[in-house]
């Protein structure tokens, strides 16, 4: 059965800290891995990764995929209180167009 596992489940840091969120997966016919940020209700798209070793970057956020070891990390540098959210990892396969989500990592950033 396809699955996506995220760690840690929860993380509490102070503003300015750097955090690394982890996502591992076991799926058949992998196509892409995606990261979403969910602040209240609607998840919003952050990154899509398809190739190993190529870093995607947007401001203080960056992500990379390792297709050999079947995992991805999401890094956030110089965290701000506005980064507080649940970060969701999802995998897309060639078998279907649905996304398989992990349980998410809840990040809380305190001033």
């Amino acid at each position, binding site marked *: 059965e396809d699955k*996506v596992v995220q760690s840690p489940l929860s993380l509490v840091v102070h503003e300015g800290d750097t955090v690394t969120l982890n996502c591992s997966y076991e799926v058949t016919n992998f196509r892409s891995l995606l990261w979403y940020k969910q602040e209240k*209700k*609607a*998840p919003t798209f952050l990154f899509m990764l398809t190739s190993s070793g190529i870093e995607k970057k947007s401001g203080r956020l960056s992500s990379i995929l390792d297709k050999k070891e079947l995992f991805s990390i999401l890094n956030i540098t110089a965290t701000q209180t506005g980064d507080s959210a649940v970060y969701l990892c999802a995998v897309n396969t060639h078998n279907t*167009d649905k*996304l398989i*989500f992990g*349980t998410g990592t809840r990040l809380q950033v305190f001033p």
Partner: protein
Amino acid sequence: GAGVSQTPSNKVTEKGKYVELRCDPISGHTALYWYRQSLGQGPEFLIYFQGTGAADDSGLPNDRFFAVRPEGSVSTLKIQRTERGDSAVYLCASSGTPNTGELFFGEGSRLTVL
């Protein structure tokens, strides 16, 4: 509209009742998805439409759940004989670029079954 719109935002019903949840996707998006999210969990896939047809309904938990998209735009998720375990946030998403995984989500409909 500019984004994915879902109504109602909150629905409280009694066990055994019928409910309908509506999703209005981003204009021009052909792909539409329904997910269900329970507290502390990631979104769980229910069904995916490409145009008017259900391309994948493998996530519907049982035959009490049904979804339609008759004109290829607005979709309705229908739940018959609701049970307390159906309580969750039902998220709708749409996509204009197939097979990318980049979905635009609505704010969700929170269903509470008493």
